[in-house]
């Protein structure tokens, strides 16, 4: 994941310096050719896109001597630019180097990064819900062997998922709908369509809707009506012709004299946009009141065609309100209506009224529209501009009863032969893949055209109803390191999410749905998160808690603890190490704390210590080796009060603290001598011995133990004057003598 390269650059003029290394790096992109040779399932187009050039604004004045490139967050590259040291050895402003980030163009121009993130957030809940339902269904089907796992509510679940995802793809920038209906506006602008939404709707209609494939041709007709404009950028389309004509329409006085009027209407009719055609027909000059009497027959013909169009029988469930055409659900009814309708067209076509129509354009235009409605192949071909439009017109007027993917696919092949295309739009590739029933092609087109988000979520639809696809996508593959294609694509998507600072938190949802590598990658992801900020740290810990990753929790707590400790935030550092129950590190920092408590002994600093010692608590488990600090602080406090002159009582308290400290098993051995050295004053107390015989013996034994320990190689010598041990021993001996005498 981290291709970084360092090399010298001979360019002299730093202002003209550009990131040539990027191009170099693109060429070096690993695995493009070698993987495909080994049968990789992720196709990468061999024709490399034009090399992108990103200017670097590093502002260095001196020539560049070295560059280093590595991945930063998301789509950014981090480029470290090193300037050559100046030749005369002088140090100037702008010497040294600079680190700049280069944001690589985010692939899809139609979707902004913010919109992409909104999709990523929104798809989490539908995805998670579907996964839990899947798990429930599969465990249920294990219990009752006979029933198929996918029946009953299953299709409702899939459809709900698909609808939820589809709702996310709506572009929020909806154009305002005009309140008044403009008679001259033939096409209305709704929301801006996106290829991504168009692609999802294709998948939805073919895979998620409960398979009732007899409706599919009509669904495709509707689909093209919504998304034909998407092809306008790369292909000629009916939609773009309509848009062009709309612009001219305002200036046209007599529309029927313009050959374009008839051309555009035929095209719109061919792809089934009946409402638009009827609306345009009514713009015909013969409808004007002042001309109606002169052009009665002509107007009758126009109206007859308009009525025939609005009565077109359609084999579909229902229409949106206001849409023209008559719907038939049952095939026999439809066939009857269809034959009757065609009979009416034929009758009109051969009627004698045409000879009475004086206006030539009207006569020819209307008759060619009749040919389209009769399914004349040549008319359809010349009225449409690309193969999909031709394909749709065949469904409408030639083969309305087409059923089954196989015949739909062969029809598509025929349409492509009739209207070959120079370059394929990403949606066209997807349609071919779907019709060809080739799951691999569909996946590859999704990935190539729409990216990892699409693939990760579309797989749910692909596997929904097809056992074949399910086997293909769930099969564990040796060439993928033992994981299935489904898991591969989820991992890829999770990896994309992980690389952005705002989306990494949703990557776990996808990772845990990956059986083989998900958990390990989740642990790596969590371990890599920054620990500096408490809020982010706690968010990581929360995710660990949800997935019961206790060892990761304690690891990141340890990292946070050491980080805070190193930056002088001893309280925070201590807290996190304590939470991690990291006794080893707590013992290590105990030494430093001990030194600080010993050195900074004043009233003011006691206030500072108070908080930390409170945090320690008295439970030895949570305090690590540090609970003695509590007593040590008390001991030091009493010692200090002796200095202040509150003599004997404080001295007694100090002795009690000293004894309990020395008795405490958690008191590290290396602190014994400094502690005793601190208490020399107590041992040599003038008025009377403060320690009794048994107390003195205890301390002498400890001192003996210490002398033995000094012989061991791992003993840590304390920073005390060399005669410290002797003076303590002497003082203890003297005290013992005095104590015996007293008793």
């Amino acid at each position: 994941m981290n291709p970084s390269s360092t090399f010298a650059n001979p360019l002299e003029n730093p202002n003209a310096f550009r990131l040539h290394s990027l191009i170099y790096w693109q060429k070096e992109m690993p695995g493009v050719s070698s993987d495909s040779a080994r049968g990789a399932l992720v196709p990468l187009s061999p024709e490399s896109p034009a090399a992108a050039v990103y200017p670097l604004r590093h502002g260095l004045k001196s020539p560049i001597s070295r560059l280093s490139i590595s991945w930063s967050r998301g789509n950014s590259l981090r480029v470290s630019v090193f300037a050559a040291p100046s030749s005369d050895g002088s140090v100037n402003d702008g010497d040294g180097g600079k680190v700049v980030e280069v944001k690589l163009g985010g692939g899809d121009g139609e979707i902004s990064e913010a919109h992409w993130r909104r999709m990523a957030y929104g798809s989490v809940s539908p995805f998670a819900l579907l996964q839990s339902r899947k798990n429930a269904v599969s465990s249920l089907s294990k219990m009752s062997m006979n029933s198929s796992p996918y029946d009953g509510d299953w299709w409702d679940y899939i459809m709900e998922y698909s609808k939820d995802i589809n709702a996310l793809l709506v572009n929020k920038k909806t154009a305002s709908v005009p309140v008044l209906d403009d008679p001259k506006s033939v096409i209305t602008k709704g929301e801006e369509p996106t290829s991504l939404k168009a692609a999802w709707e294709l998948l939805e209609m073919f895979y998620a809707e409960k398979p009732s494939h007899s409706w599919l041709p009509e669904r495709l007709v509707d689909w093209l009506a919504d998304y034909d404009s998407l092809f306008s950028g790369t292909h000629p389309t009916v939609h773009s012709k309509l848009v062009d004509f709309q612009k001219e329409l305002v200036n046209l006085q007599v529309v029927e004299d313009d050959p374009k009027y008839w051309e555009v209407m035929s095209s719109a009719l061919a792809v089934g946009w009946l409402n638009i055609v009827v609306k345009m027909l009514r713009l015909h000059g013969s409808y004007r009141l002042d001309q109606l009497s002169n052009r009665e027959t002509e107007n009758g013909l126009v109206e007859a065609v308009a009525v025939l169009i609005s009565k077109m029988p359609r084999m579909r469930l229902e229409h949106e309100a206001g849409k023209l055409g008559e719907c038939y659900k049952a095939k026999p009814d439809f066939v009857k209506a269809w034959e009757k309708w065609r009979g009416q067209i034929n009758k009109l076509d051969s009627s004698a009224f045409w000879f009475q129509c004086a206006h030539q354009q009207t006569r020819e235009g209307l008759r060619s529209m009749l040919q389209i409605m009769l399914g004349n192949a040549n008319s359809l071909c010349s009225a449409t501009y690309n193969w999909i439009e031709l394909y749709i017109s065949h469904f409408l007027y030639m083969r309305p009863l087409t059923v089954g993917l196989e015949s739909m696919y062969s029809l598509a092949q025929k349409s492509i032969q009739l209207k070959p295309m120079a370059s394929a739009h990403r949606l066209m590739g997807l349609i071919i893949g779907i019709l060809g029933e080739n799951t691999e092609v569909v996946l590859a087109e999704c990935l190539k055209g729409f990216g990892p988000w699409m693939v990760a979520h579309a797989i749910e639809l692909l596997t929904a109803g097809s056992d074949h696809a399910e086997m293909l996508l769930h099969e564990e593959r040796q060439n993928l390191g033992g994981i299935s294609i489904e898991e591969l694509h989820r991992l890829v998507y999770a990896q994309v999410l992980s690389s952005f600072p705002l989306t990494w938190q949703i990557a776990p949802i996808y990772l845990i749905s990956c059986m083989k590598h998900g958990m390990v990658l989740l642990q790596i992801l969590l371990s890599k998160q920054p620990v500096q900020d408490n809020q982010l740290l706690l968010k990581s810990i929360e995710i660990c808690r949800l997935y019961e990753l206790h060892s990761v929790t304690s690891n990141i707590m340890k990292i946070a603890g050491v980080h805070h400790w190193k930056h002088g935030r001893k309280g925070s550092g201590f807290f996190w190490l304590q939470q991690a129950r990291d006794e080893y590190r707590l013992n290590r920092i105990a030494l430093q704390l001990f030194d600080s408590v010993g050195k900074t002994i004043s009233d003011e600093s006691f206030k500072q210590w108070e908080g930390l010692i409170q945090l320690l608590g008295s439970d030895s488990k949570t305090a690590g080796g540090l609970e003695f600090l509590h007593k040590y602080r008390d001991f030091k406090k009493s010692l200090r009060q002796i200095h202040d002159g509150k003599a004997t009582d404080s001295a007694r308290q100090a002795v009690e603290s000293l004894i309990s400290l020395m008795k405490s098993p958690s008191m590290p051995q290396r602190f014994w001598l400094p502690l005793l050295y601190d208490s020399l004053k107590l041992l040599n107390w003038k008025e009377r011995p403060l320690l009794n015989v048994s107390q003195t013996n205890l301390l002498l034994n400890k001192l003996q133990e210490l002398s033995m320990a000094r012989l061991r190689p791992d003993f840590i010598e304390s920073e005390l004057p060399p005669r410290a041990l002797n003076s303590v021993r002497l003082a203890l001996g003297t005290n013992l003598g005095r104590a015996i005498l007293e008793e």
Partner: protein
Amino acid sequence: MAFAESQNPLRVHRIPQSRYIDAVRWLSPVSPSDRFAAIAYFDADTNSPSIEIAYVDPNPQSSSPTLTPQSSWTSPSRISSLKTAHSTPQPLLAAATFSGSLHILASDLINGGVMESEATVSELGFHSGPVSAVDLREGGTECVSVGEDGRVNLVCFVGDSSKLSYRRIFDANGLVGYTAVKWASPSEFATGGYGFGIQWWDQRTSGGPVLQFKGNWCQGKTSGIVHSIDIHPSRKHTCLAGGSSGTVFAWDRRAAQQPIVLSGAGTGEAPNSLLSESEVWEVQYDRYTRRSNISNISSTRILPVMICSEDGILAVIEQGEEPLELLAEPCAINSFDIDQQNPSNVICSLEWESLAILTRS
């Protein structure tokens, strides 16, 4: 657990922002019908933090509220804490940053919400590392800031010098870190930190906190951090705090060391009746109540409390009653604010780059 929908109507509107929201606060309105909010954004695409004043139109033609940006101020670093003081017509904002600076902003709501930076403290040594919390004294001219570096600073901004002067109240030299702060009276304030500890300070008494609450009631269990403190103006003896492990507790200064646990660790409840097990990011007394008068509630009883949490819960807790869940989001709710003038309105920031506006009726 009770759900709000069944008992009283609640309207929720989620407004995507396309930017991460670090903090959100209501501003006191000039007229009763106006509503303004201050929002601290972080734009991840351009890496730029800012504070914006937005006019919240509660009911445009379509029944969902809209936010209209009025003015914007670019911050030198991300906002770690944002507080407002309710003075009209120029409400004050105190914004603390992760780079350790403090900014006092004034917004003129009458003249289109123009926001100006009144004063800034950004010198080295003010705080080392981020300022973790800040609080503005109500209607006053003082601001207290705390950090994990253990510093407690008091910033005064009388006069119109653009450089602020500050006074170090205490420096724990990092031995103690503070993560929350709240004024109790013109001279007293409370801070919170690690191990569920709360400190009570009086700026007339120097050299450290005057009273400390040891948060070690949950001995043996995991301890936590206090993220937010609130003090009710009529109940100054009680500090309300929210923090790790879904913990919401109150410390009555008169009752020494025994906390009143409202939710979370140490309640001894069965885990399934817990409101939340994750971080409680913010707590505020909920002034929206159906009871005729809060003075009727006995002074030993804790007033209703609103909380938001990492696991997406926004809820109202009343002592001894089932908590009332207002929101259960699929992502974290990082902060919220109750409108002082009209407490039925709540604004909260969601982890997934959006705001939610709630109207209770």
